[in-house]
């Protein structure tokens, strides 16, 4: 097993740990704000580490650049949607919502 393989394994493991923690937080945390807090860890660090592992594994600059783009768009989309979710949760908290939806 080469050093690259070991690095890929370590990055994947750490990334998955962040995903696991994020999912656990999503399930166990009591309100929307803290759930979002947990999710952003999975989205930013978890995906970043897994993307880094994938880029190292393929070992090609072109593939790495594409993976970096995927990661960038995922992070931007996650940032936007968490802002929208947080705002909606705040609005729902200050006035009664007939729908009764809880994210």
């Amino acid at each position, binding site marked *: 097993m080469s050093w690259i393989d070991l690095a890929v394994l370590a990055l994947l493991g750490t990334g998955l740990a962040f995903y696991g923690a994020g999912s656990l937080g999503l399930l166990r945390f009591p309100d929307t704000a803290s759930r979002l807090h947990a999710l952003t860890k999975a989205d930013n660090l978890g995906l970043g580490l897994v993307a880094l592992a994938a880029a190292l594994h393929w070992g090609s600059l072109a593939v790495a650049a594409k993976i970096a783009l995927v990661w960038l768009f995922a992070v*931007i*989309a996650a940032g*936007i949607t968490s*802002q*929208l979710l947080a*705002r*909606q949760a705040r609005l729902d908290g200050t006035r009664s919502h007939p*729908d009764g939806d809880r994210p």
Partner: protein
Amino acid sequence: MTAAFDIILCLLILGTAGIALFVRDALAAIAFFIAFGNLLGLAWLGLDAVNVALAEIALGAGVTGVLLILARARLLALGDDATCADTSAWLRAGALAACAGFVLLLAAAVLSIPAESGLDRAVAPLMPGLGIENRVTGVLLAFRAYDTLLESFVLLGALVAVWSLAPAGVWPGRPADLGMADGPMRRVAGSFGRFLLPVALVMATYLVWAGSDVPGGAFQAGTVLAGGLMVSAIGGAIGLPRSDLPGLRVALVLGPLVFLLIGLAGTGFGGFLVYPQGLAKAAILAIEYSLALSIGATLALLVAGPNVIGPAGPAGGAGRNSGC
């Protein structure tokens, strides 16, 4: 991919499908349906069917998911509680029998195909004449172009059907504003839309161009374009166009029309949808680019729904044309 991964993926697909079917809450069912579509896309990827995987995730999970969420919101607005009512045991038994019969037929059909007799062998020797490398595009746009031509008209017909639901007083008007009501949310979504729409345009152009040689094509590109348009409309970055805008009408029919005209021109070269020797790639690209534009505009307007704002209605949006 290893067997363990395949088995886990199969279980996840069956599990999400089951939950989407049996859960009572419509929103939960839709969420599981979207997860199901994404997992199914992974399964297609595992079968090396990258074109199908792209289409499944973009159309099957993405656009259909958005349509279902909007349909639920409209049902709630109409006073329907959007949960499934109890149906009679006979109806359920009948549905079960029909579905089971269909699955058995499908399984029998799939299992009856010998493992070595994929279309690949028949198509491969014909590809050099087209000047493109992607065999799926070859089948869709050349060897079975008839199917794709009809599909593009079906999509247009679906939009006509949705538009025909508009009340008489609001024609020719525009669909309900997709933009978010809350100011700060609208601004956040709007800046995202303004960022995403040009990126979606570049991405869609790339997907059509790459679709000649690697997975991609008009339907995937059209869906990416529609996604960009929808996000922009949700953020109020673009307004939805009046449905009688000439530019919009051109964008909607351009794809099917160019396809049909090139197909008719083929009668001069030996038959309907026959491409002239040496010009096959040019013809296919012309059809695919116009199809992508039409599919993008059509999908976005399908999501927007029928007209509800009359011609003299509230002046929201500048009536900018979507997509062109």
